[in-house]
């Protein structure tokens, strides 16, 4: 199946695009998708969001899922 993964912040800049498309086998899990994006996420501790919720690596993906790769978050104002 083909899935589209949204990218943000430094991941979006690194990929040069707001989303990438991945070809995954049926029954693939979140962890498989993250490994498939290895170059984009290299060195960054990412989490995947599935249908707008943070998902465990074991979660099985569905062709219709809304996927996004989430790098460390820094909302909230002020300095780090």
């Amino acid at each position: 199946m083909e899935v589209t993964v949204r990218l943000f912040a430094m991941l979006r800049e690194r990929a040069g695009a707001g989303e990438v498309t991945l070809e995954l086998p049926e029954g693939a899990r979140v962890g498989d998708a993250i490994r498939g994006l290895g170059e984009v996420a290299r060195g960054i501790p990412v989490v995947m969001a599935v249908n707008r919720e943070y998902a465990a690596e074991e979660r099985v993906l569905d062709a219709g899922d809304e996927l996004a790769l989430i790098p460390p978050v820094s909302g909230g104002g002020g300095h780090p």
Partner: protein
Amino acid sequence: MSGSDAVSARAHVSVEPLSLDRVARAVRDPRAGALVTFCGVTRDVELLEYEAYVEMAEERIAAIVAEVAGAHGLCAAAAEHRVGEVPLSEPSVIVAASAPHRPEAFAGARALIDRVKAEAPIWKREVEHGERRWVEGVRP
């Protein structure tokens, strides 16, 4: 005095400038004797530039607001986050918690901002002298 036990919860992410009075009005409640707000403000740099996964950020912040309101016995809670450019001394995030008494209102506002910062899919970079640098974040 109130005819309902419902908790008012509001979450919003947009490019509009934030207003403290507006967020405070959103948590007015006749049972509330205490109202605490927190503003996160751009400091020490010309501006911060925020990017968000807006649809998810609004859903996550709404869930945080509802969970914190329940856990801390708040009358009402609200959180708003601005995206795009936020200049020095302007707020990028405002949370508000109203409760019958001081302790719950303070604890609720603190939990709101701690969780929004830790969980909302939002990123910022510092901009100074035309240089942009992503701010180090935390894994949600």
